[in-house]
């Protein structure tokens, strides 16, 4: 029996996206994009503005459906599934513009993430049957652990809208992690953070990976963070993957430099020489 390489990847890779494309009207946002992730990797997705990075996140999490191509996660075919089902499969994400539940407390924000793991139903909840208390106690304990891990203990009872910006980012990551996902997509986790907070974030992401054995795919514009943190980097321009490799390879890749700095720069350099 002969199996093609893609068939093998579908079965054995933690995550595998095969030739996904998406266009909005005439704009080809993503073209023939392939992505494979091994369990426990930290992978960076970089590219200039409008390169299609967030569209790829939306395609993976089911917020948009790809025009062509297919996505496999843990051997399951997840293309065209609605977002909540993909979340059930174990993919969680954060958003570029933070989407917290502003009028709920920090603790409740994290408890919402346990939605997939609730073992009681409407009847238990309406009449406060024992199953309700058992499950609630369990998820409150788990949520408090995350709150401590992310240094939010002092703010646990505050409303999410009262948090400073850095802590809001942390809370969103904590919430994504609390869904007990095995693949976490972070959309610009360091945007708007000061250098100290960014450093903390790098440590925290590494800690999360080691402690919970999750795979992390992140979009980021902060090159220092990407180079420090990621084991593999994928560069995107105009919806196409133009390079992929280790941070060192990416740094010296001429195609990447061209995408970021433009060809003018090289001409200028040549003229100088």
């Amino acid at each position, binding site marked *: 029996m002969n199996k093609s390489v893609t068939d093998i990847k579908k079965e054995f890779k933690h995550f595998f996206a095969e030739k996904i494309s998406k266009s909005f009207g005439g704009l080809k946002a993503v073209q023939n994009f392939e992505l494979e992730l091994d369990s426990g990797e930290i992978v960076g997705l970089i590219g200039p503005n409008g390169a299609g990075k967030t569209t790829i996140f939306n395609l993976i999490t089911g917020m948009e459906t790809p025009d062509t191509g297919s996505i496999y996660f843990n051997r399951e075919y997840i293309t065209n599934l*609605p*977002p909540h089902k993909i979340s059930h499969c174990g993919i969680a994400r954060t958003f570029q513009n933070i*989407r*917290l*539940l502003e009028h*709920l407390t920090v603790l409740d924000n994290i408890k919402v993430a346990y939605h997939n793991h*609730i073992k009681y139903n409407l009847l238990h909840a*309406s009449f406060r049957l024992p199953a309700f208390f058992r499950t609630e106690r369990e998820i409150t304990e788990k949520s408090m652990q995350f709150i401590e891990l992310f240094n939010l203990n002092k703010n646990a009872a505050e409303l999410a809208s009262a948090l400073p910006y850095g802590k809001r980012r942390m809370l969103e990551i904590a919430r*994504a992690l609390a869904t007990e996902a095995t693949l976490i997509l972070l959309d610009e986790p360091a945007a708007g953070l000061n250098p100290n907070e960014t450093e903390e974030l790098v440590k925290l992401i590494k800690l999360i990976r080691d402690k919970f054995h999750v795979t992390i795919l992140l979009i980021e514009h902060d090159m220092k963070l990407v180079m420090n943190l990621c084991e593999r980097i994928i560069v995107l321009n105009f919806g196409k993957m133009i390079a992929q490799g280790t941070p060192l390879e990416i740094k010296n890749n001429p195609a990447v430099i061209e995408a970021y700095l433009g060809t003018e720069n090289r001409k200028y350099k040549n003229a100088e020489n």
Partner: protein
Amino acid sequence: MSWIELEGIFSLIGIYAILAVSLNMICGVTGLLQLGHAGFFALGAYAAGLISIYWTIPELGFFNLFISMAAAMIVAAIAAFLIGIPCLRLKGDYLAIATLGFGEIIRLSLLNITFPGGKMFPEEEIGGSLGINFTEFPEDLWPKFPDYSAQYASLPVILIVLLVTYVIMRNIKFSSIGRAFMCIKEDEIAAQAMGINISRFKILSFMISAAFGGLAGALFFHKELAVSPGSFTLMCSIEILLMVVLGGLGSFTGSIIGAVILGVLPTVFSYFHAGEYKQIFYAFMLIILIRIAPDGILGMNELPVFLKKRRKTNE
């Protein structure tokens, strides 16, 4: 003012409080503007009325009320399910208009449908513009129960049902289901990313809200012993919504307070022979409310929690 008059007023306030609490589930907690709550109120009242006419079991006496209430809740919940599937795909203003339309459809259907009179009114038809009038059980039908009256929903009964409704709603709000509802209100995209099936939970919220609206309808029928489509107009829906907004979107305690305030006002006005100024006062009250407390009296908080918070900020 006599006791009987007062009992009537407070019973009606209790029924409206149940309506306001149930509407708050969909409007306040789940954040979907619903302008057709009177439709479910009407369905509940009619379901209770028809059940009483066709299937009252005299031996059960007072417990017939529970059969009526269960039937009213089931009918309203099924209607909400059927209406919810097409409606809840809409957002914001469009949803409000669609539910308003369905509320009117229910009322106009009830205006035009007639039902056979059953064993209580063997020769006539009931329904239509006169609705269901059901003053007393005919004595020749049940000679064993000579002074039998069907006005089961007295003030204490209504208050107990209100309390039970409030406790259930509050329990749902502070559970994972309530958190899912609030998550849908805050951010649908984040809710989906958390694994919440938003269309399913919207329909669930709509059904819970409608079921308790129907429950209020059953109590209304067993209190007044007469319903007609005229009492379930759009104004009725808007009045319920006003109670919810006044008390605070998302606060069940607030809804009860809102129902009491808006329920007592007309009586106060008529006591001073100034009934015609009621509407003007309503409008002024709304303007003042929106200026001073746009979130309503209690915001999203329930009463004991709210008091605790106040104390904390005062210190």
